[in-house]
């Protein structure tokens, strides 16, 4: 486990991303907004892996993309080594992109089918003028070997590879510019279980070798537990709980985290028999019109009156253990 006092690489401060809903053919009116991310704050320390978990549509991916400024935040700040990414743009931002890369969820959609593997992995080098033609090829071949593929694949096309291989190509592309931070946006959820382990192990090996920092977005709790140093749980655009891996899985404080963890099957028939499940009622409310007060109150088994009136503060209840709940 990493030391808590390590240098902070990325600081996300009250990040908000709303997507406006427009109506009208020529004159468009904004009639509402999807509150995808609604005030998220956390730090990522250098060299650690922060897991970000939550249900589909809770804003995990949007958080990742807003950090990388693929979406500009509605409000809030993202500090990378004290540089505020949310205020810089143009050439300045383009230069910063070298430091932060992303691995995408769908290995079939994230590689351009018309480009060769060499062109795909070499593209960041070309964009940032990091190597000449010969140097690019040598570097790409090195990267291919690094992610467990053969350098001979240089001239082949994405459609000739399997999902796992493609994901490795995506990893190689992200590594090409020697980034410090990699945002892994559900990098394994589109893969077979057997391939998932390979890719996760690859990510871990690379982290050790290059001292990478990961923001690991996923909805597979056991995989997050395996790879993360700390874990944040998101629900409807808000972080509900943030703690070290050990604390979160052994001593979850937020009722939502408890319910989530109770849904994980235990691979032991005797223990599985005794597993107590907290079944949440209803569906996730619409992010267009999120509930007042605590976002989770409509499905919370222990909700009381104050939950509807006041938004719970995201506070540190134990050292390094943050929770947003009135009742903790």
């Amino acid at each position: 486990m990493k030391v808590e006092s390590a240098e902070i690489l990325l600081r996300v401060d009250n990040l908000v991303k709303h997507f406006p809903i427009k109506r009208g053919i020529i004159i468009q009116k904004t009639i509402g907004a999807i509150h995808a991310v609604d005030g998220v704050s956390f730090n990522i320390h250098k060299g650690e892996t922060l897991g970000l978990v939550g249900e589909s549509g809770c804003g995990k991916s949007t958080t990742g993309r807003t950090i990388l400024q693929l979406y500009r935040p509605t409000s809030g700040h993202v500090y990378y080594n004290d540089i505020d990414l949310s205020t810089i743009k143009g050439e300045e931002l383009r230069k910063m992109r070298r430091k932060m890369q992303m691995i995408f969820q769908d290995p079939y959609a994230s590689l351009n089918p018309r480009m060769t593997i060499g062109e795909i992995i070499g593209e960041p080098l070309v964009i940032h003028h990091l190597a000449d033609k010969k140097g690019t090829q040598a570097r790409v071949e090195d990267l291919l070997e690094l992610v467990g593929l053969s350098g001979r694949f240089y001239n082949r096309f994405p459609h000739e590879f399997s999902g796992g291989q493609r994901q490795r190509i995506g990893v190689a592309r992200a590594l090409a510019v020697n980034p410090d931070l990699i945002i892994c946006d559900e990098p394994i959820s589109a893969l077979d279980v057997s391939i998932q382990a390979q890719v996760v192990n690859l990510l871990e090996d690379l982290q050790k070798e290059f001292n990478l920092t990961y923001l690991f977005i996923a909805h597979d709790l056991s995989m997050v537990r395996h790879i993360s140093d700390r874990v944040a749980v998101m629900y409807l655009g808000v972080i509900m709980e943030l703690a070290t891996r050990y604390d979160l899985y052994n001593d979850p404080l937020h009722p939502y985290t408890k319910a989530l963890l109770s849904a994980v099957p235990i691979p032991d028939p005797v223990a599985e028999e005794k597993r107590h499940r907290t079944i949440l009622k209803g569906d996730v409310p619409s992010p267009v019109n999120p509930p007042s007060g605590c976002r989770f109150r409509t499905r919370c088994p222990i909700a009381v009156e104050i939950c509807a009136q006041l938004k719970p503060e995201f506070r540190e209840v134990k050292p390094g253990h943050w929770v947003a709940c009135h009742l903790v």
Partner: protein
Amino acid sequence: MTQPVSLENNEFGAGGRPISVKGESLFRDSVRRLARNKAAVVGGTIIVILILVALFANVVAPYPYAEQTLVDQNKLPQWVLSLFPTMKPYAQLSSDYFIGADYVGRDLFSRIIFGARVSLTVAFIGPLISLLIGVTYGSISGYFGGRLDNLMMRVVDVLYAFPSLLFIILLLAFFRSTFAHPTPGTFTYTMSQLDSASGGLLFIFIGIGLTAWETMARLTRGQVLSVREKEFIEAARTLGAKDGRIMFRHILPNVVGPLVVAETLAIPGYISTEAFLSFIGIGVNPPTPSWGSMISDGAQVIRTYPNQAVFPALALAITMFAFNFLGDGLRDALDPRLRGNQ
């Protein structure tokens, strides 16, 4: 920690097939599948032959297209007579002309050969104009999206509702009017001169160009919109790629397939537009032969000399079929869902 397993790395793929080091691009795969489509190959061959014939019309054609031999008017060879026996009572036979001569004694066959020039020029200029304008317009609209997209597409909607044929006719009536006598130096005069210099083709190009790009713009916009949302575009942006690079390296190569298919299938439309304009007498200037004007001339005597209308019509039909077959074949070959089949 276990090392990443690299089972994929061995020399042989599934079923022991050796993995080639050189990959097969989607383009080469498409060409391979196009070559297996018989109709497309036939269509393509016909088009190639037509192009060659049009290019070397001077060599291939037995007579110049404007050479009149008045004593030979409406003469036809024996095999055409047996094809249309109704002409027997009045037909004058002559073996000098392959499919007969027209009402002023010009060789029909030579005129069909020279007529291919007009049709093929239209078949290549039409797509050129519509691709140039349509793809540029559509990709800007689709890529930047939002309000600009909305505005640009409404403009297309308005133009789309415009009766284009009527517009072309108006255009021609205005610029070719014999009453106008435009003074030298004015725009109208220059246009008229250019039109005569191109044998009347200029306004056909303008007419086709003004209307054909709208469909392409819509199609391009739709394609760009769908590709723009793909993850590899986001990946390129994460890498720091600029708009130009994303457009030309990532989006356009991925939308070019459907555009080529649509354009190939639109070519018969351009050819028939030209034929129609020439048929109603506002196309190419005589004596430049065009299949449309030849059908028009032949139609006047279709009861007495059907060969004069049937053969140019046949040439037109074969050409349009050829482009359609090729277009269909391209569509099948470029369809990614069928990749690897056949």
